[in-house]
């Protein structure tokens, strides 16, 4: 494995290597997942307790509800060179707060189309419903996302200034 894919953790080089993009042939995408606490985060926990293996490319940001995910978070990730962003919430009807995922669905339907319109690969921003019981589905979803984003290639347009 190429050293440059491992995130750098030495403080002095905290943001040093980021300009360097890994060679495409063994490109390991970095994916950020915004997971609602009650369904998707618990689903990911279940994948863990069930010991279902999936690729390590995803970094999970825990939020109370998919309705908490601000489009600015998503934009921030993409503009900083993150290769893929996932927003995952409870299935419709299961929202812990009863309505949060309805709002998220509406908001991101618009954002997703807009990002595509300005030329951002649709594979880079995705949305999913994963319940607390869907550990297997979570693992499968991450696997699929990683494959899709590998196909899309590194998010080379952005992140150069970091």
């Amino acid at each position, binding site marked *: 494995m190429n050293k440059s894919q491992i995130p750098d953790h030495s403080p002095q080089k905290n943001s040093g290597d980021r300009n360097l993009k890994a060679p495409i042939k063994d490109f390991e995408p970095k994916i950020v997942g915004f997971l609602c606490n009650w369904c998707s985060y618990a689903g990911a926990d279940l994948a863990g307790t069930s010991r279902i293996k999936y690729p390590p490319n995803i970094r999970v940001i825990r939020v109370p509800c998919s309705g908490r995910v601000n489009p600015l978070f998503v934009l921030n990730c993409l503009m900083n060179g993150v290769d893929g962003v996932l927003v995952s919430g409870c299935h419709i009807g299961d929202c812990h707060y*009863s309505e949060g995922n309805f709002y998220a669905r509406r908001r991101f339907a618009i954002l997703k189309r807009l990002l595509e319109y300005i030329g951002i690969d649709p594979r880079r921003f995705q949305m999913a419903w994963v319940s607390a019981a869907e550990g297997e589905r979570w693992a499968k979803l991450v696997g699929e996302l990683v494959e899709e984003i590998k196909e899309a290639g590194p998010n080379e347009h952005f992140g150069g200034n970091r």
Partner: protein
Amino acid sequence: MKIGVFTCHCGTNIAATVDVEKVAQAAAEFPGVTFSTAYNYMCSDPGQNIVKKAIKEHALDRVVIASCSPSLHEKTFRKCVEDAGINPYLVEMANIREHCSWVHPEGEQTTAKAIELVRIAVAKVSRDRPLEMTYTPIEKKVLIIGGGIAGIQSAIDIAFANYPAVIVEREPSIGGRMASFDKTFPTLDCAACILTPKMVTVSQSEHVTIHTYSEIEEVTGYVGNFTVKIRKKPRSVDINKCTGCGVCYGKCPVRVPSEFDQGLGKRPAIYIPFPQAVPNVPVIDRESCLWFTEQKCGICQKVCPFGAIDYDMEDEIIEEKFGAIIVATGFQQFDYSVYGEYGYGKFKNVITGLHFERMVNSSGPTGGKIIKPSDGKEAREVVFIQCIGSRDEQKGVPYCSRLCCMYTAKHALLLREHNPDAQAYVFYIDIRAAGKNYEEFVKKVQDEYGAIYLRGRVSRIFEKGDKLIVRGADTLSGAQIEIEADLVVMATGLVAMPDAVSLAQMLHIPYDQNNLFTEAHPKLAPVETITSGIFLTGACQAPKDIPDAVATASAASVKALGLMVQDKLAREPLIARVIPELCSGCRACIEACPFSAIETEEIEDLRLRRKRTVVKVIEGVCTGCGICTTACRMSAIDLEGFSNRQIMEELAVL
């Protein structure tokens, strides 16, 4: 800032695939981190002691625990750091077990990911703010909407704990549907005999106030602090002067169909709904009273020895504060007149179960005789049809009403008891007799009371002479059945009250596609609603028989009492917070908040030097979902614990 990072081996759960020591070493180098260590079991007592000791020795002010899912031990470590003198909200967890060691193979990559997860947690904790639990006062009084058996039981339970309860009942008397029942399945206790004592108890309780002939006008506020407007409709009889002597309704010249008797009997215009009514004070039905319709008569006022009749009484609106609300508004019968095949409700001898209850009641309008309403002659051949409206997606509701099987069996039994020559035929889809002694009861009705059970639907009813021809199929034998019946009894399903939706909207509680109120969780919070402080009991939530209604009533009471016994209400501080300078007052958040936890307030804007409307979060109501934060374009409303700065900091170190 002095952040301590504590990485857990979790035995081999983490250590098998993640190089824990390497993680601890890497974490020590993160900005702000002044202490980093690893231990076998961080959540154990020795593990927690390591954390506490390090906090003291290294004067740590923030802590990251890299171990398992926060859903398991976030509370543990909050408590742990609090014991060591740090604000409990200055701790974050890096989930390196469920999200890392358990799902990835051993190797550099997995360790690298664990290090990143810790880096993210360190970034987040650096933006944590110390938070305090919030407390709201509690109004120690419970409102119970609906005075049926569920509402009565709730009031009794609340009063037993010496807390005040207020029942608001729309009808002139409490008692609800149960008051009109004859006997109850499966024990055949007489409904009045078991209900009346409870009505008396509740009316005599010093802790219970009953507003009959009253409705809820408006509900504002939130848990611990509801303000409720109650509309007291004009009874036209002074409840304080009336002794219930009954002279007035004895003399009233008007006779109209009695609602209580399902129109089978008559009542005067000034009346008490039934003899055991509580309060035992008549009410004037202004629609039929001659004084109100034709400005004449006035006999009741003349004969009342106490001067209690007051024709000029007007609507009165009272306002009261409550700490909790129990919704016990019950159900209405499904209106079977949508069934064209059963005569669109036009055949006189097709009646509902509630009609039958009144008929079979020995103090009812027929003196306990089961008759054909068309000619008053005794009915011999009686057909019962189950699932009227229930389990019918076409014309009724998709759900099973749960009790019709049982009350139909009871009716079949009572029919034979009242008229040994009578024959009951019961058309059913399935017999659902799940309950203590329920199946046995149905069996008894079939075996000992000769009720003929036919599995199938009735396809058509029509009148032929003075008989009803009931045509149906017995799907077990495959035969077409035609019965010449005297009486057909419809086991109409239980559906939501016509104004259920408007009440739900007033209370901000959700309702389902059938307008039944929705519980907070179908299994684990069956009497709560998502609006804290509002609880459900009885058939307003789903069809319930008497035992279930009573059980949920007591459950709801316990939930309400759980609030009453507290001095003040402690709330997690992980709630939304408004930054007034950034707020434009557009109210997008108010529209979006599912909990009505945001209201407007006027502030003096120092920059603009004028008053301005902005929003503010009602701390006791906010649940911390954060939906408002994204509805807000100006980021003027933020969520503690998952604040914009915290999340952006997490993203910044990715």
